[in-house]
């Protein structure tokens, strides 16, 4: 009797348990040997609803032209890179996904991205891309991704405030900017100039004196030319009191600060244009190229590419998708509404963005822009810079001291890798 009970206990447990396990492992790979149709996944971060609609439209066009390929759009709305890295480690990542230029060198180094050189045809016309954006995803003559769009930075200025202050033209040089900031500032309610004290927004200023923020993959921003170039930002905040960061006036970013009328000028990118249109439709503003520093034009550029997962099982189909989305046709649909600027010169010309009153200043910056990217260690360097720069910005300690500490810490962390 006892033995029988034992057996039955065992079998019941086994049944219960195996049913649990079966429930977990529903992950059969659809090998699609018989059916022609393949499904590929595309991962990206979400945008605003109209952006999402536009992307869906581009994908629908693609599916129509390639009836044997189904594209599944997978939106990762938060912590995109964390999710992506975890999925890549687990072998569950999408076939095609977005990759910010900022993260590209690190990911290329690990070898999880498919080299795309052998897929590229003459028809794809690689020469058509804006060069700085294309180079951002290239390593040793190998392309790992093609930029889908980009934005540079430009000076946004409030026309009404300029008129009231009797200023006819946006500032052309950094000295002028500092001068007019004084005229435009009104106590602590309104600042002449709004700035985000982050390396991503300041790198071109930091390097304007000939210094290098990153040198041979290591932090190098505590050097004299970089400190000298950044000092005016700190001075303008502490001495002139005509410059503020968004949180000081209760805004979360420059566009909001500008829209609320708490800053007469900000330096922002293309993303601010649809935002201001939606949120502050009454605002009268113009854009101009970023003021010259030491007689030199400079700005930042931010770009994102489509890359292919090396572990993808449908590489041919994945390339079809990439080549369509970054091709002339797909890019034209995607950038037609102006949420992002096309990285192909021919598309930019066709859509007329170089003549657009608000976007021409952004397009003009493309050839001389510094792409926000450097060695794989840039995330570490940025984190340390941002953290310590703010203490100098707030006047808690001298800039050179803060940056020296930040550099030391960054390089220590880099050595760890």
């Amino acid at each position, binding site marked *: 009797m006892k033995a029988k009970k034992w057996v039955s206990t065992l079998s019941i447990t086994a049944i219960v348990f195996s049913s649990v396990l079966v429930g977990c492992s529903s992950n059969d790979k659809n090998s699609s040997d018989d059916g022609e149709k393949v499904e590929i996944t595309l991962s990206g971060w979400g945008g605003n609803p109209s952006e999402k609609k536009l992307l869906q439209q581009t994908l629908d066009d693609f599916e129509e032209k390639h009836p044997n390929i189904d594209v599944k759009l997978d939106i990762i709305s938060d912590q995109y890179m964390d999710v992506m890295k975890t999925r890549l480690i687990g072998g569950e990542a999408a076939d095609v996904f977005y990759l910010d230029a900022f993260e590209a060198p690190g990911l290329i180094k690990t070898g999880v991205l498919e080299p795309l050189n052998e897929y590229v045809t003459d028809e794809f016309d690689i020469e058509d891309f804006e060069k700085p954006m294309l180079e951002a995803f290239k390593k040793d003559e190998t392309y790992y991704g093609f930029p889908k769009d980009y934005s540079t930075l430009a000076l946004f200025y409030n026309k009404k405030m300029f008129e009231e202050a009797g200023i006819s033209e946006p500032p052309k040089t950094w000295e002028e900017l500092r001068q007019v900031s004084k005229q435009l500032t009104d106590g602590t309610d309104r600042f002449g100039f709004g700035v985000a004290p982050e390396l991503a927004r300041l790198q071109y200023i930091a390097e304007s004196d000939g210094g290098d923020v990153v040198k041979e993959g290591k932090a190098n921003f505590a050097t004299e030319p970089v400190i000298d170039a950044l000092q005016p930002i700190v001075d303008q905040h502490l001495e002139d009191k005509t410059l503020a960061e968004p949180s000081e006036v209760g805004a979360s970013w420059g566009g909001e600060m500008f829209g609320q009328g708490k800053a007469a000028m900000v330096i922002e990118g293309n993303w601010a244009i649809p935002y201001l249109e939606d949120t502050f439709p009454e605002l009268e503003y113009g854009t101009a190229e970023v003021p010259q520093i030491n007689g030199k034009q400079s700005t930042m550029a931010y770009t994102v590419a489509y890359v292919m997962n090396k572990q993808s099982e449908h590489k041919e189909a994945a390339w079809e998708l990439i080549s369509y989305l970054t091709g002339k046709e797909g890019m034209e649909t995607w950038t037609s509404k102006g949420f992002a600027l096309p990285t192909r010169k021919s598309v930019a010309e066709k859509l007329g963005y170089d003549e657009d009153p608000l976007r021409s200043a952004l397009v003009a910056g493309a050839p001389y822009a510094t792409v926000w990217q450097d060695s794989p260690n840039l995330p570490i360097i940025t984190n340390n810079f941002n953290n310590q720069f703010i*203490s100098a910005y707030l006047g808690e300690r001298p800039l050179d001291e803060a940056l020296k500490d930040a550099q030391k810490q960054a390089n220590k962390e880099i050595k760890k890798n």
Partner: protein
Amino acid sequence: MRNSRKFSKRMLREAGQGYTFMFPVIFTLGLFVIGPILYAIYLSFNDVQLLGGTSYEFVGLENFKEIFSDYRAQVSLKNTIFYVAIVVPSQTILALVLAATLNAGLKGQKFFRIVYFLPTLTSSAVLTLIFMWMYNQNGLINQLLKIVGLPTYNWIGDPAIALKAIMIMNIWATAPFFMVIYLAALQDIPESLYEAAELDGANAIQKFWFITVPYLKPVTSFVVIMGIIGTFQLFDQSYIFSGGDGGPNNSTLTVVLLIYQYAFKSLGTMGYAAALAIALAIVIFVATIIQRKFDKEESLY
């Protein structure tokens, strides 16, 4: 001889039966609790590269040694300890006072019990976002301070203030949870003790101090230990507050946030992150033991 008789066939069978019943639990616990812990310990002794061909390289105690020369690890530990030192006593005292007032038999105390408990029911992420609105430069808190004529602060952007802003928020949010525990314990205090004290001429404060507080000691020690463990693991609030970087000027960088950064933000430092996590576990362990020690000594007296 005795031993061999002890494990008779029947006993083995019964043991087998028992373990079979327990198997699902042992398996799940092993897979999701014990397994990860052992794996984390293993990781902490290795140099780990997960992305693009997983590789482990045994480095011994190298990861642990690095903690001592890591400036950010020291800052995060300092922040966390400061946080624990302020938040644990404050929330414990606040919880006790709240519970005592609710137990005093005032009118409408059921209503207030619900109101006080509300913050605990809200998710901490949502609470943090709401507080960030209130902490905004032009937000509710600064407006109130202005009306009363007190100085206003840049709660989120000022390195000297940011961590304190999180403290205030957390004390407010966690105290009610411990208040409920105190409230349950307060019901257990025999009324006769208070009566006896009254006969001896004790006033309300004396009754609270000499009867309520000592009587609640076991509960207090539970509350303090839970508080220490909870506050040492501060992550979500400072993560949301700083947008993940522990800024401004590393002022909201906590140990767990730093672990997260090393594990997921920078590539190839998973082993070091695991070492930090184990170091944190040791710190919490030691802090709890110290707390227990204090408790024992007092109860002797």
